[in-house]
């Protein structure tokens, strides 16, 4: 990189630096999507003020939808980035554990009756119990990965299959419905505030993780374990515990998303809630330019990646793509992204770039 900073091509080196920066990939993807929407349908960027059923004024429009639903993904991406960095694998059970956490919360709120008129427990208690359940699920994955040394994706495959069954079992396969409007605040709107609450929750999570990364050694240790496990052990770290910890942190993120998810509809559908969200979360991490094989990570690129993914989803919906068919399109995007980020293709790109540069130089000489 030092070699390229010869002053010959000023703009070229600036561009090159930008391209090499990790956050370039999500920004480029975002710009492409914005451009696409501007050309196809500029009304995508309209924000209108509507009145919701409670009589409060709220903002609505595709962009608000992106920010609203992207917030769930951003929260998940925080945990997923840490897990990816530490263990070099991804947790594919997040969708199923969201179902578990949501189901547990509803169970606590409803008590024995599936359609109570009043809440049986304070919402904060329900959230904490749900949090505990999700952390237990995370701890289960963490133990399998860190102490039994099973590949993360295979270890989490267990909960991926069983999770939704467990969620249904927690509530005896009934569908509890919460009638208290207060519970709907977390996924909807606070009275008098026109911005969806999930955005605030996501902001809170980002501030917390920023503080944690700034003032603790979590980020450094996670990267150290991801880059070289045995050398980090020789340096006095406990790699197994750090891996375990990242899975538990992901559990907390999952519980927050679970709260938002069940709050949105004040109920739960075990087989549909957070379906395919694991794919989106992994995609967010990959789009953020983080190596899926672990090591260094950039939290902000992942979070931006999450919003870009939601942007893509909303755009696809706008283009009348059925929700069943969405995975096919996203899979193509994943493959393209991953192929671009492989070393083989990257060296090919840089070769092409160099030959272009030399051609330009010969022209200048002439």
């Amino acid at each position, binding site marked *: 990189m030092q070699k390229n900073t010869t002053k010959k091509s000023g703009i070229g080196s600036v561009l090159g630096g930008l391209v090499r920066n990790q956050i370039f990939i999500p920004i480029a993807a975002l710009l492409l999507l914005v451009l696409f929407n501007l050309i196809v349908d500029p009304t995508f960027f309209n924000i209108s003020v509507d009145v919701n059923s409670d009589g409060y004024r709220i903002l609505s429009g595709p962009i608000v939808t992106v920010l609203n639903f992207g917030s769930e993904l951003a929260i998940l991406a925080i945990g997923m980035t840490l897990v990816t960095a530490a263990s070099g694998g991804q947790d594919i059970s997040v969708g199923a554990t969201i179902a578990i956490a949501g189901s547990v919360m509803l169970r606590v709120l409803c008590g024995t009756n599936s359609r109570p008129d009043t809440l049986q427990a304070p919402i904060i208690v329900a959230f904490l119990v749900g949090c505990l359940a999700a952390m237990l699920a995370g701890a289960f994955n963490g133990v399998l990965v860190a102490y039994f040394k099973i590949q993360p994706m*295979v270890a989490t495959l267990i909960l991926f*299959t069983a999770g939704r069954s467990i969620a*249904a079992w927690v509530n005896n396969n009934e569908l509890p419905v919460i009638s208290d409007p207060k519970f709907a605040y977390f996924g909807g709107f606070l009275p008098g505030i026109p911005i969806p609450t999930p955005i605030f929750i996501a902001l809170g999570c980002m501030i917390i993780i920023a503080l944690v990364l700034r003032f603790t050694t979590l980020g450094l240790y996670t990267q150290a374990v991801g880059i070289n496990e045995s050398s980090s052990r020789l340096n006095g770290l406990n790699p197994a515990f750090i891996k375990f910890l990242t899975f538990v942190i992901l559990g907390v993120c999952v519980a927050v998303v679970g709260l938002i998810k069940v709050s949105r509809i004040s109920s739960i559908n075990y087989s549909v809630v957070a379906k395919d969200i694991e794919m989106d979360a992994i995609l967010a991490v990959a789009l953020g330019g983080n190596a899926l094989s672990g090591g260094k990570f950039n939290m902000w690129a992942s979070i931006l990646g999450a919003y870009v993914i939601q942007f893509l989803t909303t755009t696809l919906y706008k283009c009348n793509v059925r929700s069943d068919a969405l995975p096919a399109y996203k899979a193509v995007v994943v*493959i393209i992204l991953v192929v671009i980020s492989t070393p083989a293709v990257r060296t090919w790109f840089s070769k092409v770039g160099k030959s272009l540069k030399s051609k330009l130089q010969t022209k200048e000489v002439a």
Partner: protein
Amino acid sequence: MSKNANTNKVRLGDKMKNMTDTNLLLTITIVVFFLMYIGAVVFQGKGFLKPQTFLNILNANAALIIVSCGLSLVMITGGIDISVGGVVALISMCCAVWLDRKGGNVFTAVLIALGIGLLFGIVQGFLVAYLDIQPFIVTLAGMFFARGMTTIVNTNPFNVENEEFGALKAARIIIPGLGSTTKKGIYVNAYIEIGVVVALLVVLVMFCLLRWTKLGRSFYAVGGNQQSALMLGINVRRTKFLSHVLCGLLAGIGGFVYFMHVGSGSPSHASGMEMNAIASSIIGGTMLTGGVGNIIGTFFGVLSLSTIQNIVSSAGLDQAWWTGITIAAMLCLFLVIQSVVMARKKRSGGKK
């Protein structure tokens, strides 16, 4: 007394050490299967003693056996393929549309099935082997792609009404001497479906391939240690690529057998099949780390898995969620057993 027991233990330990990893895990699997089946006979009544009960397990799981064989190949080579369930669903949907709506014949339907399977195998194999992308990511994308494509081909589930195919689906091979008399005193022949014959053939061919061909041995070599395989002059990339192609081909065959069993197309077909196939392979003694595994073990893995499902449903725990939970629990158990057995073996080997 205690000394005696001690020497016994040592002898058993020695035997374990002398066994190859593959044989050790294979033995565990087969023992577990027979214990489970005997347990089922003892606790769940005589239903499990009828040959037809056993044959029904084969009938229902012929496709799973074929798909699991392919998955075992990939896992022995050190990779994984979780797209197989989606591929099977896509194949049954495409074949159903071809036979029912487009009026195609069965032969071309088989070709379509094999073609789709091969295509998935080739693309995924190329991405994994030649571009060095993690197999899990590639096949996860493959799974979502296949599931999405299934709904793009057709959204609603429907049954196939095609005479030629109906005859094939209804075909039964009667096994003499294993029939049983019903309560009314009528003698019912024991039968298997055509799919079972295909599955058994696949198991046989794959077993021979893995044991006696150069390609089969190089699968083990690559899975065991890529570096040394490379130094032995094995084309590692080509071997990995071929393992994925073979897995795709077997997913194609399995997809058609599955389609022959259910006779309909639906986006929700074969949901969770990749999980069952991986579980069967692991229960059958295939190590996730690669280099260890056996097709016979996989075969018994499928049988164990479906036996436990039968036990669960005949024990009255018929709700849908129990099946998922049992399979997951069993997979977890075997993963932990593998991890512990291997760790202990390594330690005792190291002391020596």
